[in-house]
């Protein structure tokens, strides 16, 4: 079987809190099934390889985001083509915001996004902080920790990742969390997101294998610890 390649975009500038856990979860859940894989780190000014099967982008400090936004515009058509052709993508927090139409920040004005998602985000005075529980049609219960002052809204047609049961999600008003477009996900859930939500991790891996032109039925793993951690986290204030 051909190696599955994950592009981790901007690990130096966009991995503020626990984003390492997301790529680690993807790697390990492939390793445990003997699926060869590699994480390629792509920094500002570097090219995304043409033969990648999965893209991940994490969250960053506001200051780092401006440099990243400019670089992301140069990669925009490649990322859009990848997603349009069914390529899986996960974006968290700051990365999620930059994949929308634009983000209006407090300190740096309007930052142009790449318009992959039909969303806009604006800095607000509310810091949305805390453990968050989301119910998703596709994945069931999702848990994480959110910490953002940017509020995200849909423009035009967009599907949320899920409905907020506890916490804020996209914004303080509509009880929706994240977005899902084709096989691309945007979310505010840190925690790290994938280790405690293994269904999402496995779904991303399945799409990556499919996108690589291969077929393979994923072996079930023992997720007892993952599920216990999720149940405990859902109960925390």
């Amino acid at each position, binding site marked *: 079987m051909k190696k599955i390649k994950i592009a981790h975009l901007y690990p130096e500038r966009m*991995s503020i*809190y*626990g984003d390492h856990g997301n790529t680690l979860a993807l790697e390990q859940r492939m390793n445990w099934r003997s699926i060869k894989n590699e994480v390629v780190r792509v920094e500002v000014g570097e090219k995304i390889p043409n033969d990648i099967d999965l893209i991940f982008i994490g969250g960053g400090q506001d200051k780092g985001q401006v440099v990243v936004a400019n670089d992301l515009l140069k990669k925009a058509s490649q990322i859009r083509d990848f997603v349009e052709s069914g390529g899986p993508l996960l974006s968290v927090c700051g990365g999620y915001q930059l994949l929308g139409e634009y983000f209006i920040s407090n300190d740096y004005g309007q930052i142009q996004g790449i318009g992959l998602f039909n969303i806009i985000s604006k800095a607000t005075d509310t810091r949305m902080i805390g*453990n968050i529980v989301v119910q998703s049609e596709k994945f069931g219960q999702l848990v994480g920790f959110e910490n953002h002052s940017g509020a995200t809204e849909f423009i035009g047609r967009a599907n949320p990742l899920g409905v907020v049961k506890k916490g804020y999600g996209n914004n303080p008003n509509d009880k929706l969390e994240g977005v899902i477009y084709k096989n691309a996900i945007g979310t505010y859930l840190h925690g790290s997101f994938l*280790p405690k939500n293994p269904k999402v991790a496995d779904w991303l891996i399945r799409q990556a294998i499919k996108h690589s032109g291969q077929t393979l039925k994923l072996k079930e793993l023992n997720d007892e610890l993952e599920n216990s951690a999720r149940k*405990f986290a859902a109960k925390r204030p």
Partner: protein
Amino acid sequence: MRSLIAILAAKAASKVNRISGSGGSSFPGMVAKKIDKDILQKLVLNNFPKGIIVVTGTNGKTTTTKLIANMLDEAGITYVHNRTGSNMERGLISSLTDTADISSKISAEVGLFEVDEAFMPKVCRAIKPETIVVTNLFRDQLDRYGELDKIARSFRSLFEDLPGANLVLNADDPLVASLGYNLENERKATYIGVANYNGPKLKHDYTADSIFDPFTQEKLHYTDRYFSHIGRYRGKRGGFSRPKLDFMAEDVKQKGIENIKFVVNNSTKAIKLDMPGLFNVYNSVAAFATAKIALEISDKDINFALNESSAAFGRSEALSYKGRELLLLLIKNPTGLNQVIQSYLLKEKDRLLVFVINDNYADGRDISWLWDAAFEDLSDYKGKILVGGSRAYDMALRLKYAGLKGVSVEPDEAKLLEKIEKNSSKRSNIFILPTYTAMLSMRSKIVAEDEKAKEYWQ
């Protein structure tokens, strides 16, 4: 008059605390501030003839403050300092109302305070310190502190408002170093750092944040990175670079987990510190520089104080429990935890290892940081591992993804202590790594048990 009532009320509150053995050390401060909102300012006015020193930064506040206190003791200078952990506004007020007489007079010559990063602007604008020490700035409890850059900006504007203050800054941390860059009126910061370091390093360090020029966002070039974003670096010609060190440690040598040796500013005598870890070398050099520039303490007194120093409360503190030797190593953020891994766990891989991870407010509600720590470096750890605390399962999950096996989970603290006993033999050495609130509760249970055992044998 208002301040007199405030002081009396705080003293009364403090007495109640002592008699009942309950209540936090911030309680008297809270009472005093309710009565007189300017009480902090009034308590320092006309006091402390030799100045006020404030120590802040993500890691090392408590230890650096303790080292400076030891130097003051050695030099025979009297001082007031805040008790461990009480580093927010109310805690500071409590420590001052405790020592002030009813006319707000304090007899000590120096005020020495560790101050929480988030409270720096407010506290320092009230007490106007003569010297400010910034140890480092790492990612830490983002739910409480926000982003590093915001803290740095608040410090920069604070320093402009205190034009007379000495600044002691860590040159090896780019963000901290940048705080002394381009100061007004040729004002110069005092820079501390480590000239070179050849000790062990982690292979999986994901905690570096400030590896970019804070002014241009261009990547800095590191000739050597000791840990996280700490090390020797340079920027573009003519731009921001690592400043020249005014106080530097050299010849850093750590053997085992007992102590670390180093030399400061080419002095012929090596300092032997009974607290291992490169981070403690940074704490020592910061304390050294402060003692010299702000207090004019002699090299002899400084060296003596450092050689005699032991770790602060809960930070590498040795306790005995049912015949076992426990080493309590407080962990609060990924960089601090990585330093514990680098200085202790990589050196003694056979010991029973216990993580106790709580997510109470004082610990930070967000435990995402566990995923940034270098547990992958522990893949060949041989000792048994127990995990406890309110987020025991998250911790166990982190270790599972790091590839560690044989991890046992016990969220209940009393049962965890039983498990510790069951999984170790008498006279064995055990590492306990708790978060802040877990450290407080574990420590009190362990100490109580030890006292009980002593009474029994008497």
